[in-house]
């Protein structure tokens, strides 16, 4: 399987605090195409920082992040904007959507920024919303959707542009159990069907139980890296 992301000696130290904080310590990992990985660990273990660094939202203090044979750690900010747009899908904890756009417009948004043809955009957005079970909410704005439905739209948006991988930062944190399971089912199915690499940060056991690979971070370092056969 093709390696999608490779980190080498990744470290991140925050110096804008009273005492410098080492959020990541010498992390070297590889993520293969189609993997469904959960990054777990207690609060402050560096989960979000790790996702931010491999997602090009933050720069490492040391080390490399190789994606598609390119070290994004050495990219300029403007290059990172383009890189994120073309290669990475994001799902955040909550309030992911643009409130003034309908579900279809939200899902189309990244493709619009990528300047995809309108017909392709609309077709793909509709297809993705149907896949996440929101085929009847195409023209509904986020404020008329439940929290779970909003996260499903966010997943549809992240996957619609067929990125190399999707990063999800605690996507179920604000969801009730039923909505969380529903979202996880959808993400697991899309992971299989679309063969898109999914990487989550979570301390939600429901997510951990679905992941085929679980990486545990403790104090910014990899404590465990386990693979499970869930099929």
């Amino acid at each position, binding site marked *: 399987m093709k390696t999608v992301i490779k980190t080498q000696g990744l470290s991140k130290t925050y110096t804008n605090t009273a005492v410098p904080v080492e959020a990541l310590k010498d992390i070297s990992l590889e993520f293969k195409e189609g993997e469904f990985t959960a990054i777990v660990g207690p609060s402050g273990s560096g989960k979000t920082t790790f996702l931010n660094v491999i997602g090009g939202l933050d720069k490492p203090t040391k080390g490399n992040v190789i994606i598609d044979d390119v070290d994004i750690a050495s990219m300029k900010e403007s290059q990172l904007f383009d890189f994120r747009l073309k290669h990475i899908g994001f799902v955040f904890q909550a309030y992911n959507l643009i409130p003034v*756009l309908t579900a279809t417009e939200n899902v189309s948004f990244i493709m619009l920024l990528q300047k995809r043809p309108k017909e392709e955009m609309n077709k793909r957005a509709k297809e993705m919303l149907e896949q996440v079970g929101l085929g009847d909410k195409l023209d509904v704005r986020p404020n008329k959707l439940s929290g779970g439905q909003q996260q499903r739209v966010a997943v549809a948006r992240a996957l619609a542009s067929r990125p190399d991988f999707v990063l999800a930062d605690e996507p179920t944190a604000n969801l009730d159990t039923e909505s969380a399971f529903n979202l996880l089912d959808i993400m697991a199915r899309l992971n299989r069907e679309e063969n898109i690499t999914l990487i989550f940060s979570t301390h939600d056991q429901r997510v951990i139980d679905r992941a085929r690979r679980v990486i545990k971070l403790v104090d910014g370092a990899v404590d465990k890296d386990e693979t499970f056969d869930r099929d």
Partner: protein
Amino acid sequence: MMLIKISWRNIWRNSARSLVIIVAIVLGVLGGNFSAAIRLGVERQNFRETVEHQVSHIQLHHPDFIANPEAHYRIEDGSKVAGDISELPEVAHVSPRIVFEGMAASANMNAGVRIKGVDPEAETAATDLGHLITDGSYFEETGRLPSVIIGKELAEELNTEVGSRIVLTFQDISGEMVSASFRIEGLYEVTSTAFEKRNLFVRKVDIEELIGKPEVITEIAVVLHDVDTYREVAEHLQESYPGTSVRHWADMQPSLYYSLEFLNQNLIWIVGLIILGVSFGLLNTILMSVLERVRELGILMAIGMKKTKVFGMIVLETTMLAIIGGVAGLGVSWGMIRYLNQRGMDISGFGGEGMGDFGYASVIHPELDPGFYFEVAVVIVAFAILAACYPAWKAIRFVPAEAVREE
């Protein structure tokens, strides 16, 4: 297109706040335009009154007449000069006059006056005098006594009225004192009470008969088809008649000229200052809106929306608000100014009667040139873009990784 759609919908997310700023812009534009229209209307009215009814566009005199207005400083071949000038294509009307400084006396009062001997038809064509008569008639009578047309203010000062006799005394060309009785045939009214008190009109032929010399002309008033050509025509006349002193209205009324010039060049900045004030309100509104959307803007940048687009979106939102308010403000002010221009604003109840002492009318007709509305529109958009810069800059300074975690 999507950026426009998002910006448009964003400004209506908090419709009450957007409406408040739109109303503020409307009121700012209305206030600015209205005060500008009053100022311009007053000055243009003053121009029309002063230039069209009193001094005309250009006047010719003997060079010494200006400092010493005596009739022996006459224009050589005045009638021929006046005739030749009237043939010029730029010239609409010419009124040749003989002017004396003198005294007007009624039965029990007297006043220093400027006596203007005119050709009634030429004078009306040049200054509209025949249509400014508010009591009596305009050189229609041919009775035993020659007619005189005097200002309403002078009539009050002399405590006299239409039909009464007054005695005019002045020095003739040879320096001899001449006195003659005239019958007041009509009273004229102009905005300037000073002009009314000072200037009276008699037939030129009656004066010529009194002084025993025909064809004496000390002043030629020239009215042009296009007032904007006054400088070129005045220069041309000065070259053609070097023995005369040619002055245009701006020479004769410098304060009026500079006042109009100032307004023409600076009126937009008077309105601009008001719009500048309003634009700080706009800045505040957009800044609030940006600070309420930290997380959303962070997500937009995280998923790949470039900072230039985020900046553009904020500028677009601000500009849209300004355009809505600006268009509404321009529309309302255009309607209001147009209505008041036709109807007139009578300010006599607010002490406006006294404005005549300064040459201003008590009924104001506010006016603005159509091009001025366009200039205001440009200023609104320019200030809106400037006002948007700070919130937009603030927005693109958000660090996506931090902004997406904002509560």
